[in-house]
């Protein structure tokens, strides 16, 4: 991709992906889901998840799957608020960029 995904955008994308699952979701699935939208390497997301967890935007819990514990990530209330903030910011940002790109002739 031509454009870099900044840390804030990456946070927002991960929050959005995790928030789609009411019960929470796990590392591998998060990576696969994020990759449907943007190119990220497999080692990129762990630090993001860890950071969001430390910032209390995500919470983790272990669930028994196939006789082993799988770690699940779930969006917290704070995480939801943060995601809303990102959404608002992104909307205004993308509108401005779109105006600049597509409405350039009329200026």
């Amino acid at each position: 991709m031509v454009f870099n995904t900044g840390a804030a955008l990456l946070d927002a994308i991960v929050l959005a992906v995790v928030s789609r699952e009411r019960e929470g979701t796990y590392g591998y699935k998060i990576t696969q889901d994020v990759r449907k939208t943007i190119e990220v390497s497999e080692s990129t997301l762990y630090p993001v998840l860890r950071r969001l967890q430390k910032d209390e935007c995500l919470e983790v819990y272990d669930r028994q799957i196939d006789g082993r514990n799988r770690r699940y990530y779930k969006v917290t209330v704070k995480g939801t608020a943060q995601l809303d903030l990102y959404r608002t910011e992104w909307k205004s940002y993308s509108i401005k960029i779109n105006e600049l790109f597509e409405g350039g002739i009329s200026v």
Partner: protein
Amino acid sequence: MNRIEFMTELAALLQDVPQEERRDAMKYYNDYFDDAGEENEQQVIAELGDPAKVAATIKADLGSFTGEQGEYTEKGYQDSRFENKEMPAGRDYQEGYHYGGSYQDSSRDGGYDRGSYQSSDSQRSEYTGNHYQDGGYAYENSSEQTPPKTNHLLKICLIILLIIVGAPIIIPVAIAAAAVVFAAGVALFAVFFTLVIASVAVAFAGVCVFIAGLVSLIPEIAVGLALIGTGLILTAVGIVATVASVRLCVIVLPGICRGFIWLCRWPFQRKAVA
């Protein structure tokens, strides 16, 4: 490389991060392999790449948690792992505030209005993939190093001045000091070497006396027996002393060498500590 090798290497590389962080990261990647399934194992390893890179990515986000930032500034960032570590050190939430203002200017999306974000988010820059070596890193690197640099420069100037002014005195004194230290080293070495030689000589003398005793056994039995006895005792004492002194040398000589090197380094080391 298989999964076990990968995880072992990753664990080894994460030895210097807090235990909780290591456990969390190991859990994540262990789960990751489990969820990817055995059939995808090689693909996952290929994509994750070098465990060192993965470890660096993990450490990069820990920042000051390793608590050894001072070391990186001294090492000059030759190690790629340290490079990556250094980057977030400046980006650590607490430290980040200091650079916040100018940082946003140098950041690529500086124009993007980040003011409304929480401060912890606004301090981060391009994070994805392999962009560690971008402008953001270089910038923070320099900003962190500036204070020690001036200090260093001043020190170098002072040292040069001192050398110019004091050369006529310092150089002969330094030569004399070096000579004294060298002589002391040689003397110490000689003392221990002498011990070995003396012990060998005692053992040799014992053997000689023993032979002399054998020779005089025929004309004078008493003298001969006494000489044989003395010779045997001397031989035994000499052998024991030889073994002991050689042992002593093995222990002491490296110590002396180390002490000698330490003594030579001492003036420089003190400077580095100060």
